[in-house]
């Protein structure tokens, strides 16, 4: 195993991307993710890569679109308001079936909002993130080590399925330092025969395109894309089950919220309350089956979120509204304390959720 070093989450993403073979990064400054760009600006010129600060988020995602069209690994990173600007490009990449990695180190919104951590872009990330029918693979790291490993995974899934992977982190995950061990990455060979690299006058021209003016054809493309999404839902779900064996209450949280929830679960367990957690690692595809199975065993669910309650809708739908689901949340850049989560657990334990 590689030596453990202390790294900020943002830096871990950048280094992992380089290890995964990404040599093109385009971005625009925004707090709290600037370390990613700074890291790339320093590293890329030394390894024959390209870091370019774009004139806007809109331009950055379209530069990503350009490189992605050539089949090379490419990424951009931003924070919430910047991702809104990128949503045009995200939709075009989905429509053109281009692989890329996009990082959202979320901050409080809506609008310019604040710069403190948030998870309020869950809907934006998991329900499309732009106009039209499409999905992105959404990965939610909960440690600096996962910031790195999910970046590598994100590139692989993007290439495997020709679509955008998004790392949905938050200001805390981006700014915190933890020990991380970065391993060499072996990049698999993916079919890139669709890429535009010049025909060399040896093949018919390739076209990267999302325009389709014949509705029957466009419909077919959409159905085909959703077949692919179904495969992903069947094969790529990732989650962590924590102390769920005997749990009567199931906490659900991702990212920083899951870290806080673990403290609260330890406190509750010390008081004899049987509580566990399902931590979705892929927010899309959502761990529907895990929640459905949990609903057979537990009495109630608690969704811990740094938002006004977004993932909670997916928990309710996954459990088919069979068990009560309550929200334990803070918003606007605030983070729930372990004590607040403990309170919610106690209330659920007393049957307050029913």
């Amino acid at each position, binding site marked *: 195993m590689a030596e453990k070093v202390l790294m900020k989450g943002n830096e871990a993403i950048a280094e992992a991307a380089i290890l995964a073979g990404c040599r093109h990064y385009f971005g625009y400054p925004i707090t709290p993710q600037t370390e990613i760009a700074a890291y790339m600006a320093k590293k890329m010129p030394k390894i024959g890569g390209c870091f370019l600060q774009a004139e806007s988020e809109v*331009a950055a995602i379209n*530069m990503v*679109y350009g490189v992605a069209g050539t089949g090379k690994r490419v990424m951009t990173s931003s924070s919430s308001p910047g991702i809104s600007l990128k949503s045009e*490009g995200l939709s075009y990449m989905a429509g053109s079936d281009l692989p890329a990695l996009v990082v959202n180190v979320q901050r409080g919104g809506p609008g310019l909002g604040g710069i403190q951590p948030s998870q309020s872009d869950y809907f934006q990330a998991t329900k499309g993130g732009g106009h039209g029918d499409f999905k992105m693979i959404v990965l939610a790291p909960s440690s600096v080590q996962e910031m790195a490993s999910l970046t590598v995974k994100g590139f692989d899934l993007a290439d495997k399925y020709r679509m955008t992977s998004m790392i949905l982190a938050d200001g805390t995950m981006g700014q915190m330092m933890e020990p991380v061990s970065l391993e060499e990455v072996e990049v698999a060979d993916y079919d890139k025969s669709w890429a535009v690299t010049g025909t060399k*006058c040896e093949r018919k021209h*390739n*076209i990267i*395109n999302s325009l389709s003016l014949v509705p029957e054809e466009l419909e077919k493309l959409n159905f085909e894309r959703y077949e692919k999404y179904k495969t992903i839902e069947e094969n790529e779900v990732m989650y962590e089950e924590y102390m769920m064996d005997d749990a009567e209450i199931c906490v659900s949280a991702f990212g920083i919220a899951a870290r806080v929830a673990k403290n609260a679960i330890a406190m509750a367990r010390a008081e004899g309350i049987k509580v566990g957690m399902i931590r979705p690692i892929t927010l899309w595809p959502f761990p529907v089956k895990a929640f459905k199975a949990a609903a057979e065993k537990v009495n109630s669910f608690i969704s811990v979120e740094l938002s006004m309650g977004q993932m909670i809708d997916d928990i309710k739908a996954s459990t088919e509204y069979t068990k009560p689901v309550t929200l334990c949340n803070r918003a606007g850049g605030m983070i729930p304390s372990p004590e607040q989560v403990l309170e919610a657990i106690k209330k659920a334990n007393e049957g307050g959720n029913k």
Partner: protein
Amino acid sequence: MVVFDKPKSLLDVPLHYCPGCTHGIIHRLVAEAIDELGIEGQAIGVAPVGCSVLAYNYFSCDMVQAAHGRAPAVATGLKRADPDNHIVFTYQGDGDLASIGMAETVHAAARNENITIIFVNNAIYGMTGGQMAPTSLPGQVTQTSPYGRDTSHCGFPVKVSEMLATLDGAGYVERVAVNNVKNVRNAKKAIKKAFQNQIDKKGFSLIEVVSTCPTNWGMTPINALKWLEDNMLPYYPLGVYKDRDAQKEAE
């Protein structure tokens, strides 16, 4: 003896452009330049949003369709992916390049991005049915300026070539027209030079092609050419606005 043939870089498919539209001429000039420079196998074209959105079906080289106005950013990505081997050009109209994509245009020029931009200026939004463009002339009647472009209300046209020429980054900027044989020949020369510059790694080149839109101008093709000469050319004078090489030689 063959006296007239289709350039190799244009595919043998019917174009969708309106009768009398000058896009066909400009497509041909681009294709001829690519053929003559022998870069078809390296070329990657970027189609815009607008009338020429379907250009990806017409050129035989690899093609990418870009979001409205974003072609220079997409081209930046395509070029940076393999600067030594990709020859990248965009083909954009006035709404695409000078309105919604002005930031991408200006900054690609400022960076001296080593790409070639073909900018077709016909002073109107064609595809969407004839709305006022950033280059529509004062007083010009369009669907969204039905009483003529009122400069006190919606300001003045953007002179793209003049503006870009002020940027240190822009390497080569020339305005040409395709209204008569002489001008078409000049346009061809300029377009070819814009590609040659890229091959020679000289950086950003933009050729503004003043052209017509008979359909949305509501004119016959002949009258449209006449209107171009009488109205557009005085406002958009032809010529080289920036040529870093020539400037260097002169110094």
